[in-house]
């Protein structure tokens, strides 16, 4: 059997052999609602775009190949994808979830699924023994973010999925991190950890990070998200007003570098007490590193921290 292609090859050629008729090397955009049937009871494999669309299918197949899964599915947002997965559970089930999770996931679990009878149990998934301690017979799925958002704690995916499989539960990993801009991330994390006005720096690429070894064993990089604490909450608004290269905006993973204030933005839906306990304080800022030149990024933070 031929070995599977490398990730770079799969990425470069997604959809490149789909269009037999014209040989187009890019995937056509099928902007259509429905598909003509050749005859009654016969189908081209595509009937209606909600159920299947060639453009979406190539994306779904590519994702499945990249992740080594059997099937992929594309949705209108990340939360819509998670919502679909949660429909695999039934009322009365529990789901064990990473405690410092994305605020939107927290909102979905608490506001939509708790009333439907799904109970989320939150645990520090970077500690396998804590996951084991929180487990009971009603837990039917484990939802892990690693590295976590915004504190970048690392979970041992191998150990956790073995644990879940042995108990007949699903393991779901939110894998929304990318590796492309990590050289910038490492340089910025190193700069920040030397800066006098910066306290803790959360980045698994720093040797001091507790999960560095685990992440090295299960991922090919450390990602492009760095979170850090400044020494005084009053510095936060000044710093956000002074950044010139970083955009002050919510989200991550873009080609442009972003700076986010999690306690007021991405994690505003968590109770304040929970935020404080997890470390999502009023001094914590999150960076998503883009592809700008590293010197511009470091200089920008340096002048902003001088506020």
């Amino acid at each position, binding site marked *: 059997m031929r070995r599977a292609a490398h990730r770079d090859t799969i990425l470069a050629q997604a959809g490149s052999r789909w269009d037999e008729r014209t040989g187009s090397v890019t995937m056509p955009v099928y*902007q*259509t*609602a*429905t*598909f*003509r*049937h050749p*005859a*009654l*009871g016969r189908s081209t494999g595509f*009937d*209606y*775009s*909600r159920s299947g669309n060639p453009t979406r299918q190539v994306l779904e197949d590519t994702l499945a190949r990249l992740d080594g899964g059997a099937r992929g599915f594309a*949705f*209108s*947002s*990340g*939360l*819509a994808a998670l*919502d679909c997965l949660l*429909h695999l559970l*039934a*009322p009365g089930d529990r789901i064990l979830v990473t405690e410092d999770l994305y605020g*939107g996931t927290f*909102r*979905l679990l608490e*506001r*939509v699924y708790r*009333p*439907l*009878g799904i109970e989320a149990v939150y645990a520090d998934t970077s500690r396998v023994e804590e996951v084991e301690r929180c487990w009971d017979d009603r837990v039917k799925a484990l939802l892990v973010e690693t590295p976590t958002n915004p504190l970048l704690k690392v979970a041992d995916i191998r150990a956790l999925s073995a644990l879940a499989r042995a108990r007949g539960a699903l393991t779901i990993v939110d894998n929304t991190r990318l590796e492309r801009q990590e050289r910038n991330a490492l340089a910025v994390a190193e700069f920040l950890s030397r800066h006098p006005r910066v306290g803790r720096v959360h980045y698994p690429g720093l040797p001091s990070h507790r999960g560095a070894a685990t992440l090295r064993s299960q991922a090919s990089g450390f990602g492009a998200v760095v979170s850090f604490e400044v020494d005084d909450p009053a510095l*936060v*608004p000044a710093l*956000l*007003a002074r950044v010139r290269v970083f*955009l*002050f*905006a*919510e*989200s991550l993973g*873009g080609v442009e570098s*972003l700076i986010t*204030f999690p306690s*007021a*933005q991405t994690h505003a839906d968590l109770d304040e007490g929970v935020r404080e306990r997890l470390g999502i304080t009023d001094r914590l800022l999150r960076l998503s590193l883009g592809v700008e030149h590293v010197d511009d990024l470091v200089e920008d933070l340096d002048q902003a921290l001088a506020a």
Partner: protein
Amino acid sequence: MDDRTRILHTGRDRDPHTGASSIPIYQLSTYAQEDPFELGAYEYGRGQNPTREALEHTIAVLEGGEEGFAFASGVAAISSTLLLFQPGDHLVVTRDVYGGTYRLLAGLFRRWGLRITFVDMSDLGAVEAAITTDTRALYVESPSNPTLKVTDLAAVASLAKARGLLALIDNTFMTPYLQRPIALGFDVVVHSATKFLGGHSDLIAGLAVARDGSLGRRLGGIQRAVGAILGPQDSWLVLRGIKTLAARMDAQQQTAEALALWLAGRPEVKTVYYPTLPGHPGRDVHLRQAKGGGAVVSFELADRDSARRFLEAARLPLLAVSLGGVESILSYPATMSHAAMPRQERLARGITDGLVRLSVGLESERDLREDLEQALATAR
């Protein structure tokens, strides 16, 4: 203002910065902020997008509701609306409900503890008898899909109001151009915007409109939390489609009316279902609450075999699922729109093996009639 004018001038369909006559497609995920403690009105694309908002505003104005919401599909709009309810709640739903909605209710939501009774909504006594202390809403389609059964909307809405229930309606077949259920007392209107609103069979989209702000806030919270939103490109395409809604509906409806009358006189056709056809049991009620019969005609041939021969012989309409496009579409509900319904349930609703559904497009009436005529000849 006349409906034809209002469709083109809803107030939010142009760019406030440049005056561009068409709202820009805001293809983005996030917005730069000024102040960490006072975030701007625009924070993140799932929550807010100006292109999507222009569409949401437009459908709210056209339906006469406070707030509109755009979703990734009609089914996504319906499932997000159903999340207004809690486990143990009971809904009374029209028996002739779209197959996809049936699957959602009888499959997914029943599992989450929602209880559903399907009743014939043209029988108000039956609706009233189905209401229990746990009932929270009545859910209607009128005319229904595919047998075009008519429900008295004002009567259902006033029954809902008297019993403290929400009145929900899927207005896909009529669009707000022909029928405005909120003015008749409904609380939430949902749409598959894939159909007449989009109008060109080139996208999948759903809409929901809430009569009042408090219901709107709850629906908006669900839209943001679940995230089954419509993207900016498709939002823009639906807006573009809506601009010609009146012209398309007028022309397609005129052809549909003529074809329905003609089909009723054909020996190969057992029954024609069209809301304004003389003899349709719901005709008077329909004409009271809507401006016309719409552009969908269903008709029954002798049996499965005649239907097969007819569908294979028709050349102009596409054989496909969906409806409401500029091109005519023929579908076979038994294996297409209502495949999710068990056979006995389907037959009880008149969706027999001889039933075909025609969505009439913008082709010439004469070409369509000639094509149907030759196809019927093979079905004898």
